[in-house]
């Protein structure tokens, strides 16, 4: 067991994955000598050489598109997109090419690509550097999307993502990169299933559901609630595509009240899918509507007001109050 930041846990997971399979390569902007703008690939080029750790030209479609070609050649490319807001030039390659190769070829060719994408706000930066673009990807069949909330989870998920025969987007909560530390067992096997949600706190009265950077907010809210005498269950989705409906619905049925949280705007976010499905499957079990606590329905604002945009513990509690009042 070692204490690692989320960033170092991802570095460790990636290193292990590259150690274990020499066909794993990484490509992205500034990932070589610089070690990436977040230093996630720090030391990788020294260890694995410029052959396997490739600085790319400044072109996101190029990164993902050539990765797809390398995958067809038998490689397992891990792409780094530098920031959430810069993934869109690669959009056609991701939703029309990467996600469909298997379907298009009737299962003959898979695209075992990993796309690492730092995301999330409250990082005090400028435009395009604090966003949560997951809703642009979740409508895409054929794509897996996972996001860790702790170092140990990050260590596990990045390895599972590399091992998966499916294309996986790993959304990395960038505000936790260097701020969140945790115990990681570097020798633990990383062979679990990629799309399992996790009940991170047991409770009975209400379920708080979220993923990635929202989990610490939800856990804080649950603690406040506990102090106030309310028992909240907390579910970490981990995989937002596909969603682990068994775990989600079980918790909703058990508590009868659900608050979902994400940083992306409310409209058409992951919360919409969660609410739609839960009300459909757990209709009679629900004591209150599924409530959403989300980013506002505006583009990500200038950072000096971002704390009013990103869901806070208070806003979660407000929604919990509303749900409990039904």
């Amino acid at each position, binding site marked *: 067991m070692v204490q690692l930041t989320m960033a170092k846990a991802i570095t460790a997971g990636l290193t292990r994955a590259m150690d274990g399979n020499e066909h794993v390569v990484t490509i992205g902007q500034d990932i070589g000598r610089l070690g990436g703008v977040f230093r996630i690939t720090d030391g990788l080029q020294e260890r694995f050489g410029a052959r396997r750790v490739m600085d790319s030209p400044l072109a996101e479609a190029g990164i993902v598109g*050539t990765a797809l070609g390398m995958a067809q050649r038998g490689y397992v490319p891990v792409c780094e997109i530098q920031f959430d807001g810069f993934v869109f030039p690669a959009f056609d390659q991701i939703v*029309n090419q990467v996600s469909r190769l298997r379907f298009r070829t009737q*299962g003959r060719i898979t695209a075992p690509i990993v796309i690492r994408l730092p995301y999330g706000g409250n990082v005090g930066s400028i435009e395009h550097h604090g966003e949560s673009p997951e809703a642009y990807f979740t409508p895409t069949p054929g794509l897996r999307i996972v996001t860790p909330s702790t170092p140990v989870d990050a260590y596990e998920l990045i390895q599972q993502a590399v091992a998966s025969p499916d294309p996986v987007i790993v959304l990395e909560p960038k505000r936790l990169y260097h701020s969140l530390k945790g115990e990681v067992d570097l020798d633990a096997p990383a062979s679990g299933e990629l799309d399992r949600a996790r009940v991170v706190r047991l409770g009975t009265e209400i379920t708080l559901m979220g993923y990635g950077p929202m989990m610490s907010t939800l856990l804080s809210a649950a603690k406040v609630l506990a102090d106030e005498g309310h028992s909240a269950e907390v579910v970490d989705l981990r995989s937002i595509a596909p969603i682990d409906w068994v775990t989600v619905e079980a918790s909703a049925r058990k508590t009868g009240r659900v608050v979902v949280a994400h940083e992306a705007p409310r409209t058409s976010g992951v919360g919409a899918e969660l609410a739609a499905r839960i009300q459909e499957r757990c209709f009679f079990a629900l004591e209150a509507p599924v409530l959403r606590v989300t980013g506002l329905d505006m583009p990500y604002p200038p950072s000096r007001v971002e704390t009013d945009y990103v869901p806070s513990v208070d806003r979660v509690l407000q929604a919990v109050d509303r749900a409990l009042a039904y």
Partner: protein
Amino acid sequence: MTATNAWTPRIVGPASEPPDDPFAGEPADGIETVQLLDPDARPRRHHTYSPQLTVDEVREAYRTMFLSRRLDTEGTNLQRQGQLALWAPAKGQEAAQIGAISALRATDMVYPSYRELSMVMHRGLDPIGVFQIMRGITHATWDVEAHRMGVFAFVVGAQTLQAVGYGMGITLDGSDEVVLACLGDGATSEGHVNEALNFAAVYRAPVIFLVQNNQYAISVPTAQQFRGAPAARAAGFGMPGVRVDGNDLFAVHAVVAEAAARARAGEGPTLVEAMTYRIGAHTTADDPTRYRTRAEEDLWVGRDPLVRTERWLREQGTTDDWFTGLAAEADEVATDLRARVLALEPQGITDLYDFVLAEPSAALAEEREQVAAYIAGLEGR
């Protein structure tokens, strides 16, 4: 091999219109068009390139071109009869395609666009694969690895990045294979195609970009598509760009062979601009009378690559009998294919769930069951 002259294009002027007829005199952008057999089937000497094909090889190439044209016609007919969703005729572009692919090894990878029926046939694939796509039976079909022939790509140009990535993989492997990336004149305008050119140059990937410049992207003529022709574009990315008469089997073959040799030697990518013409419509949904003249079409019919190759073969002693035999073979192939096309049936929709994700997904399994139950219910009615 001293290829310097062959690939060093001169520069396109700032506002020059691409020539209406690239073979009428010196093209306005100053880039020469490599030609080894002229439209009247007269050999032309070239300072760098010379014909590399034996008579037998040309006969084999002609056979593929001829058979594919026969099936191309069949495709249009089947579409008219409501048996196909769409057909994209390749008539007129056979020499560009077969000239290029015949210059490769069978182990070299090809990333086609959507018009490369003759390349598919050259690789020994059952052409019914193309008809399956066009009938709406599957999106893609053949065994890519076995035949080293990628799937058809319908998002214009997107395949070029994958071709480059595949080439980067070849380099990583230390292999001497090469990749042929097929695209059209219109495709060169797409951003991702330009990214592909740049990545190929930067990583020195063993890729040959074959731009079949058939003068149009649907209705848009090259004069409105770009001011710097593809062959000139290449130099700006730091790779050789060669323009070749795309209806001249010998010239395309020689130019691509040389580019492949360079790529194998680790010298990186080349762009080959094959000047040709799509004699038919863009697809069966298109109406070329809206955007081009009969006179222009006739001009290019006069440069038909099959006619040119046939004349050369006859001059080399190929007999009437051989051609008659081939025509008969083509009819047989077409009749057989037609029957098989009509019999094609799609997989049931529930089977397609297998292809969404490789690792099992509970959500998908559940939906699949629901759909199956629903369909069973309908059939039960």
